[in-house]
């Protein structure tokens, strides 16, 4: 590993120029173009940035001027971003798949005058909102395809901008260096707009220090160096992408690789073999599904090998990765499995060289998480947000678990408010929400604590456990913490449970509605020769109740081991007669359960659960897909679930 970069290089442009000197011929960025990986060395990258900065200066970019960037991951995007920073400007990456209307607000809000657009599609969107965004005077486009007929005065190609910049640089090579020297760590380095799903979008302002410092600390913690390779495949407007493929690359000098197109990511990953990897749980899940499907189609011998060795991996893989003691015989078997199954599997996934893999963003199922760790991929969880420059909690090697997000990263202070809200004070904290002092004030208090809105607690090892959003967390009648989403997620990790809705706020116990997964349970029923007529019939079977009851029992056993929430074990449940639907208003369009609405709509069922009855009669209106309505009428069974005394479940859990 290369020597650490001195901390005196405290801005992005200064770091870039340092790398161009220190490791000028090493790869900085790779991009697959016309089927061949093209490499930009740090020197080439710096040259392009310098020229571009000269051109932007000539175009009138001032210090603190905002520049929008709408592009997928491309070397030129990163060059443009850094060129803007060279002049003290502020790059504002926007989501490249946002529709035109969604781009209008950030551009108006940040009074953006210049924008970089990847291609015709992005240019079209920017031109569409031009009437609402009078400040936007310049649009630079990279890919000239289809642009021949465009003659708007705002448009200019990246090529011509670069050519002008190279000339300007020849004339006055000192201009850029002087501007770079003026840059301070406390200058603004970027602005990231939050998605706006929870209200109006807010521009999160980060300084060079608040992006680079956490990046540096985390890189040191994981031992990242200039030999490492990262595949940049998530949207550049997301802060994580910026940290992984910009801030950390600039801190360590590692190489980032841009896929050929969004559809080729899996192939590109296999070709590049990244050593450092990030994926949200849904990506990991999609990969695992692919593996499972391909295994089902494989020959009998391969299927047998896979089943056999995955069992061994499941037993000892994680322990080996954590450096825990494992018997010699098991080690030998695992080694054999590594040659026959795990190695090839890692290779297919493009993860043969992954040293550090992160996942974050939502709760990850323990089985999913364990799968990757058991085949020898060092997947870990982290916790962070746009406002905290990602690194708040990271699981250190050897302390990796599926149900926590790990302890605080060095330099980060954490505490929980009485409402159990996680508060953070760290060097990576954002400076402010752009032009929104009120929101800034609400999120960041006078002592500098950032209020995350996430509720959780420290477990016995001082790992942070995030359970829900603060506003959704309630209390049972006896004062026990009640985090419905945490319970529901635990239930949903079982393949048989599609949705779950837990009730318990201000009640004496927790009860749940379950939606079974018709495909998984249908399959299960077929294997048992269990005939059924349809969803409603399947959902009312005693066998299915037993199956679901077993799932709940395991969740309860888990909960019993967590003193904080041991009392929120699920005591009674019923299986709903219909699937929860977004069309019926029971789910949001992004398929999150609308707990309040469901509680109201099925009030009788909820009352029956709490009244201790064995069954409840439902008559419900349903809306069919063709718009007709009909009525259902059925008797739903209600069952008690087995619960455990707090702590007593440990033994059972170990046995399972």
């Amino acid at each position: 590993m290369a020597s650490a970069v001195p901390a005196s290089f405290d801005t992005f442009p200064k770091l870039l120029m340092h790398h161009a000197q220190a490791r000028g011929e090493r790869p900085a960025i790779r991009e697959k173009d016309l089927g061949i990986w093209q490499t930009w060395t740090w020197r080439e990258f710096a040259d392009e940035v310098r020229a571009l900065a000269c051109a932007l200066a000539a175009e009138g970019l001032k210090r603190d001027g905002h520049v929008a960037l709408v592009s997928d991951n491309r070397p030129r995007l990163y060059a443009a971003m850094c060129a803007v920073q060279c002049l003290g400007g502020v790059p504002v990456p926007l989501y490249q798949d946002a529709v035109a209307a969604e781009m209008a607000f950030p551009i108006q809000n940040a009074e953006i005058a210049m924008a970089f657009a990847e291609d015709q599609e992005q240019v079209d969107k920017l031109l569409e909102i031009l009437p609402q965004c009078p400040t936007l005077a310049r649009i630079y486009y990279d890919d000239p395809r289809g642009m021949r007929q465009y003659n708007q005065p705002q448009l200019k190609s990246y090529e011509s901008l670069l050519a002008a910049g190279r000339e300007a640089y020849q004339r006055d090579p000192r201009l850029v260096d002087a501007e770079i020297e003026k840059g301070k760590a406390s200058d603004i380095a970027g602005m990231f707009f939050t998605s706006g799903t929870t209200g109006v979008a807010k521009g999160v302002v980060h300084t060079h220090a608040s992006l680079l410092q956490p990046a540096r600390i985390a890189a040191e913690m994981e031992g990242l160096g200039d030999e490492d390779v990262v595949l940049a495949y998530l949207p550049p407007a997301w802060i994580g992408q910026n940290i992984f493929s910009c801030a950390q690359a600039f801190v360590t000098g590692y190489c980032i690789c841009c896929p050929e197109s969004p559809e080729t990511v899996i192939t590109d990953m296999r070709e590049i073999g990244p050593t450092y990897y990030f994926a949200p749980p849904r990506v990991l899940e999609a990969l695992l599904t692919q593996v499972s499907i391909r295994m089902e189609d494989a020959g009998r011998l391969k299927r047998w090998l896979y089943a056999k060795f995955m069992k061994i991996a499941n037993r000892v893989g994680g322990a080996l990765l954590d450096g825990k003691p494992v018997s010699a015989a098991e080690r030998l078997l695992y080694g054999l499995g590594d040659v026959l199954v795990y190695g090839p599997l890692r290779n297919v996934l493009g993860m043969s060289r992954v040293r550090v893999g992160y996942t974050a963003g939502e709760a990850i199922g323990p089985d999913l998480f364990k799968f990757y760790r058991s085949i020898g991929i060092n997947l870990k969880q982290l916790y962070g947000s746009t406002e905290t420059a990602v690194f708040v909690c990271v699981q250190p090697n050897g302390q990796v678990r599926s149900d926590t997000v790990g302890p605080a990263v060095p330099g980060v202070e954490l505490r929980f408010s009485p409402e159990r809200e996680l508060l953070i004070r760290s060097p990576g904290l954002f400076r402010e929400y752009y032009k929104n002092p009120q929101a800034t004030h609400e999120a960041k208090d006078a002592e500098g604590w950032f209020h995350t809105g996430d509720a959780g607690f420290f477990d016995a090892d001082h790992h942070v456990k995030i359970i829900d959003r603060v506003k959704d967390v309630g209390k049972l009648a006896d004062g026990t913490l009640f985090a419905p989403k945490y319970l529901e997620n635990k239930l949903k990790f079982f393949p048989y449970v599609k949705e779950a809705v837990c009730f318990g706020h201000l009640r004496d116990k927790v009860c749940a509605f379950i939606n079974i997964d018709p495909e998984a349970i249908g399959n299960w029923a077929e294997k048992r020769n269990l005939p059924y007529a349809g969803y409603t019939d399947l959902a009312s079977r005693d066998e299915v109740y037993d199956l679901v009851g077993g799932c709940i029992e395991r969740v309860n056993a888990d909960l019993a081991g967590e003193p904080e929430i041991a009392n929120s074990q699920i005591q009674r449940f019923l299986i709903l007669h219909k699937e929860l639907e977004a069309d019926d208003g029971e789910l949001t369009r992004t398929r999150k359960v609308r707990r309040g609405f469901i509680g109201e709509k099925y009030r009788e069922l909820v009352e029956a659960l709490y009244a201790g009855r064995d069954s409840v009669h439902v008559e419900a209106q349903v809306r069919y897909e063709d718009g007709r309505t009909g009525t259902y009428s059925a008797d739903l069974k209600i069952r008690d679930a087995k619960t455990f005394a707090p702590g007593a479940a440990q033994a059972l859990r170990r046995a399972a």
Partner: protein
Amino acid sequence: MILSVENVSLAFGGVRALQEVSFDVQEHEVRAIIGPNGAGKSSMLNVLNGVYHPQTGKIRFRGEEFTDMESHRAAAMGIARTFQNIALFKGMTVLDNIMTGRNLKMRCSFLHQALWLGPAKREELEHRRAVEEIIDFLEIQHIRKTPVGRLPYGLQKRVELGRALAAEPKLLLLDEPMAGMNLEEKQDMCRFILDVNEQFGTTIVLIEHDMGVVMDISNRVVVLDYGRKIADGTPEEVRNNQRVIDAYLGVAH
């Protein structure tokens, strides 16, 4: 004018597929041939690239005149085509299929190529680059190495267009490029056809049933019915032509 067809007649025994058809195609234009089923559209296309040999009439392509064209000659002169019912090599990858479109541009001998000697290697790299540019142009990078037989229909159509483009044609004949596609695939295809026309300056003659597409992307339209030309003009003119309306909707007898 890049192509003109004068009084072409084609008969199979007693079936007169084309009767005295004449029209022309301007350089750089998108020209559509439309007509009800059995009107002779595909026959016309087959005459143009030498699959069928008309009994009478003349074809003039870029100043040269023929009575009947030979397929290989048409290809050598810069006429490429796609087929109504996709004619790709199903077991070969997308890349290899498009590479076959470069066949006429390969100069090295069989021996050179078999041994991958210097010039053959250089040549192959050059062709591969041309093929990669087409792959990039048609946005099919993700299926570069996929056997064509495994692709959905819409993508196969795109690959076929890619193979035709690989020949760097002056004139591109498209036989129902959007048949069997859904709306989104049609829109994509329209965009590619227009981009080909604009970026490479390729002249395009296409047969299409989707009137919306035809009216949107073509500069001029020829209408055939029972082997005869019944109208010729801009989409607007053709749309309002009574004979065309009659041919499509039928007339009371």
